[in-house]
């Protein structure tokens, strides 16, 4: 109801204009022939391209050429409806619109490629720098490992040197049984098997050595000179050797790493005819076995 009321006052002039236009169209319809399909199609193609900023901005020259062809087609058609050149110019216009579209696409793609190549470069730099970071971390790790290996090698060399020094300090002599330390009779009072107070000091070196070289086992062997009975001397040498072993055990050396034997006067290292010779014969020898050799097995030899 309301709609009809609002439309009717305005519809009158519009209607009359439309009617007039229709009449005019009917009047001129015969005089104005419809443009050929080729021209209509070219006009539409041009109109669409010219209205597309992508084309009009990126391929203005070719688009202008297309327009000239189109103008020529229209002018030719206006002059002579039957001129075959209308189709020809329309054809050229159509092709140039297509060229303009391809050029525009190329231009836009080239711009995009330029933008992307910057992004690609940035990404490439990022990728490389990450690779560099990783390489740096890996190099650092390799360097640390190498340093540790070197430190280990150095400490081993150091240990070997220290061992040599310790053995030298113990005045150990190399024999085919191992390193032999000879502890003189100054460790004991005459005919007694208890260690003197001062003797303990020199045994500490041996204790230290054995603590630091846990793979070494020792034979403790007692010897006497020929003064006194053989039985007594055998017993005395055994007890003295035991006293030395006792000291080692008291100081934390596993007794399993030690073996003890008294030889009495059986293995003199010097003459028993002189005081000096007898003094050399009264001794306790500690044999430091080579690594891997067992004291319990070696003591019988």
């Amino acid at each position, binding site marked *: 109801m309301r709609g009809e009321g609002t439309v009717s006052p305005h519809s009158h002039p519009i209607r009359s204009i439309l009617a007039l236009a229709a009449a005019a169209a009917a009047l001129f319809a015969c005089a104005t022939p419809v443009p050929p399909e080729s021209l209509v199609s070219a006009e539409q193609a041009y109109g669409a391209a010219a209205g597309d900023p992508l084309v009009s901005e990126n391929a203005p020259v070719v688009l202008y050429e297309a327009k000239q062809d189109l103008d020529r087609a229209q002018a030719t058609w206006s002059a002579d409806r039957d001129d075959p050149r209308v189709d020809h110019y329309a054809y050229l216009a159509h092709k140039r619109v297509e060229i303009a579209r391809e050029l525009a*696409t190329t231009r836009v*793609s*080239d711009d995009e490629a330029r933008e992307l190549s910057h992004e690609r470069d940035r*990404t490439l730099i990022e990728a490389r720098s*990450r690779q560099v970071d990783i390489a740096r971390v890996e190099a650092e790790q390799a360097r640390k490992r190498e340093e540790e290996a070197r430190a280990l090698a150095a400490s081993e060399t150091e240990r070997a040197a220290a061992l040599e020094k310790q053995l030298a300090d113990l005045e150990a002599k190399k024999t085919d049984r191992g390193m032999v330390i000879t502890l003189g009779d100054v460790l004991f009072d005459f005919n007694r098997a208890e260690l003197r107070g001062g003797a303990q000091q020199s045994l500490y070196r041996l204790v230290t050595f054995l603590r630091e070289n846990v793979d070494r086992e020792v034979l403790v062997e007692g010897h006497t000179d020929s003064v006194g009975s053989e039985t007594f001397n055998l017993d005395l040498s055994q007890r003295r050797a035991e006293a030395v072993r006792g000291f080692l055990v008291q100081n934390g050396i596993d007794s399993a790493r030690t073996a003890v034997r008294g030889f009495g006067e059986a293995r003199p290292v010097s003459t028993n005819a002189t005081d000096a010779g007898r003094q050399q014969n009264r001794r306790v020898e500690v044999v430091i076995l080579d690594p891997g050799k067992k004291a319990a097995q070696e003591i019988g030899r």
Partner: protein
Amino acid sequence: MNRTRFRGVPLVLLTPLAFACATVTPPTDTINAADRAIVEATQADAEPHARLEMHLAREHVEKARVAVKEERYAEARELAEKALVEAELAEAKANSVRAQRNVREIRDYIATLQREIERESGRSR
């Protein structure tokens, strides 16, 4: 184009010639331009991207030459003009395809790099 040749000629004589302008001289320049455009398109590797256009361009330009021989200059000109736009379109299509492929390739490369970065950042952590 050829109007300079008629400079100084009385207007009365020129008027009928103006209409016949296209027909009286062989379209040598246009045929040459079409030939050049075909060469350029071929160099731009247009053949695989625009077979029809290349074929039409060659066909039109050959027909244009025949028409020139037979002194059908107006037809020759139209054929040469057609050949020219076909060749230009062929080259434009080839360039466009190439440019779009270039964009795709760069995109793919960036994507590859980004995957690499993600993988490596996972490795370094």
